[in-house]
């Protein structure tokens, strides 16, 4: 049934022993740029089939955290574990780790010289060596579900922003990653296009995809997240269920942030 969701079977089968192991775990992660500390003593656990929302002001380190998790950046200290494997170990095969993680950025980053179909099938074909027919069949099926089937042979610049971002989501999940990282994927969109993109994320959650989402859409975070982390100045200042963080924030900084956001009409 799950065409989008993670590979069913071995890795996330219902073995209780594996269940206990979170898909992503960060331990005392520290990251600096030059002299500036951007992430400080970050601890985070993302259990399988759950959604973690990262909220926080601009510059609080959300993107950096996601980039570290995907090994686009090296951490200075601490460890990041993917399915129990320390991926910050310098001996890690970076490419292999990235194959298990899907990423969607704020600016769509579709490949402008490839059609929608080629964008989606690039990694399945070249990285996972799927035969062309198989990869394209699945890509078409995914496009069909999002009502984008007639766009399969368009180039990205002929699509609306919302359509581009939905294609970027499909491209990220086409390889059935273990973990999906989304970095403010609706921030560059016109307000009326945000809904169609978030709907796809909602579907992914229903299908059991494990996700970490940096977002400014508080209402969405509240609805879809199992866990909310409030980042402030590079530390996880508050962490809990949406009800805890949004309903009864314990820290004053969190309260201030939420009030500012509310005043801006985003909650």
């Amino acid at each position, binding site marked *: 049934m799950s065409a*989008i969701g993670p590979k069913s079977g071995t890795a996330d089968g219902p073995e209780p022993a594996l269940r206990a192991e979170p898909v992503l775990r960060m331990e005392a992660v520290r990251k600096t740029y030059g002299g500036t500390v951007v992430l400080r003593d970050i601890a985070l656990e993302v259990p399988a089939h759950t959604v973690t929302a990262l909220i926080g002001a601009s510059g609080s380190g959300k993107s950096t955290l996601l980039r570290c998790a*995907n090994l*686009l950046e090296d951490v200075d200290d601490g460890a990041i574990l993917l399915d129990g494997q320390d991926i910050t170990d310098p001996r890690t095969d970076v*490419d*292999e780790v*990235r*194959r298990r*993680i*899907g*990423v969607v*950025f704020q*600016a*769509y*980053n*579709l*490949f*402008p*010289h*490839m059609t929608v179909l080629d964008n989606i099938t*690039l*990694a399945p074909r*070249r*990285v*996972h060596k799927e035969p062309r027919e198989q990869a394209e069949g699945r890509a078409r099926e995914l496009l069909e*579900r*999002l*009502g*984008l089937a007639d766009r399969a042979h368009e*180039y*990205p*610049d002929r*699509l*609306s922003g*919302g*359509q*581009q971002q*939905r294609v970027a989501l499909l*491209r*990220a999940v086409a*390889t059935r990653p273990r973990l999906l990282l989304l970095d403010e994927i609706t921030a560059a969109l*016109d307000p*009326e*296009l945000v*809904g*169609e993109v978030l*709907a*796809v994320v*909602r*579907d992914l959650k*229903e*299908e059991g995809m494990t996700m970490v989402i940096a977002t400014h859409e508080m209402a969405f975070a509240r609805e879809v997240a199992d866990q909310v982390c409030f980042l402030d100045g590079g530390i996880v200042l508050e962490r809990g269920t949406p009800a805890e963080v949004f309903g009864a924030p314990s820290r004053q900084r969190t309260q201030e942030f939420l009030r500012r956001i509310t005043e801006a009409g985003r909650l």
Partner: protein
Amino acid sequence: MTVRDGQERGGEDVAPPPFPPAGPGPAGPGPAGGKGGDDGYRPSARRIARERYRRTRTRRAFAVASASTLLTAGALYALIVNSPGWQRTRQTFFDAHYARISLHPILHGLWLNLRLLAVCGAIVLVAGLLMALLRTLRGPVFFPVRALATAYVDFFRGLPLIICILLCVFGIPALRLTGVTNNPVLLGAFALCLTYTAYVAEVFRAGIESVHPSQRAAARSLGLSNAQAMRYVVLPQAVRRVVPPLLNDLVSLQKDTGLVSIGGAVDAVYAAQIIASRDFNYTPYVIAGLIFVAITIPMTRFTDWVAARMNRRQSQGGAV
């Protein structure tokens, strides 16, 4: 899946129809009547008046351009023909007899230029791309490779082509290496390749660097290796962007094939020179020059056409 129809409609509504029926260009095919929509549209008097005005303006612009061109041409002609040395110049540079007798040897020599263009052009494109790729290699192991490639490009981009040819054609045989040719055509071609590979490598490198880093990051996060990201994502975009400057270099290479004549190879230029120095008439040079221009023009037009076509097919970097 819960993406429902209502949801999709949202996206569909925002997306523009595949193509709006042409632009509102002033050169449009006149009042379009009710075409392109059965909404009973009739062009208003205002639109008809505007279009009439535009047509008059276009006609007037054309008339002015023609008159001014004719006037300029006439003035230039008068200036040249009435200059004191014109009679003498015409005999030395524009003599029909010498034009006729030189045409065949020049065309014969031109065949060599065209073959040089084809062979050197192919070698230069491949070697230039390779050189550019060598310069993008990361990691300490590749330091010597990077350094050598950089030194090569710096040196041969600065070395005047004519000196490069002289050194190759006369210097290499002087070394008396066994197994190395003394053929001036091959040595000249080698010199052309050396110089043009350096130019072309720089063009490719500029193209590679013009692809936004986020494209590489996106490719890498999909699990593509460095080499795969280069091959499938960066290079295709880079090459598309540099096609016009590359063709430009090929046009330039085409006329520089004439320089192999300094080593004694009988190409179009040398064929002209033989006649010119025998009969003290420079008409063959003019003919050879015109022929070079004549075969360069189609290539230049082709360059423009390719560039325009690529811009139409997809505006680059729209999604970056």
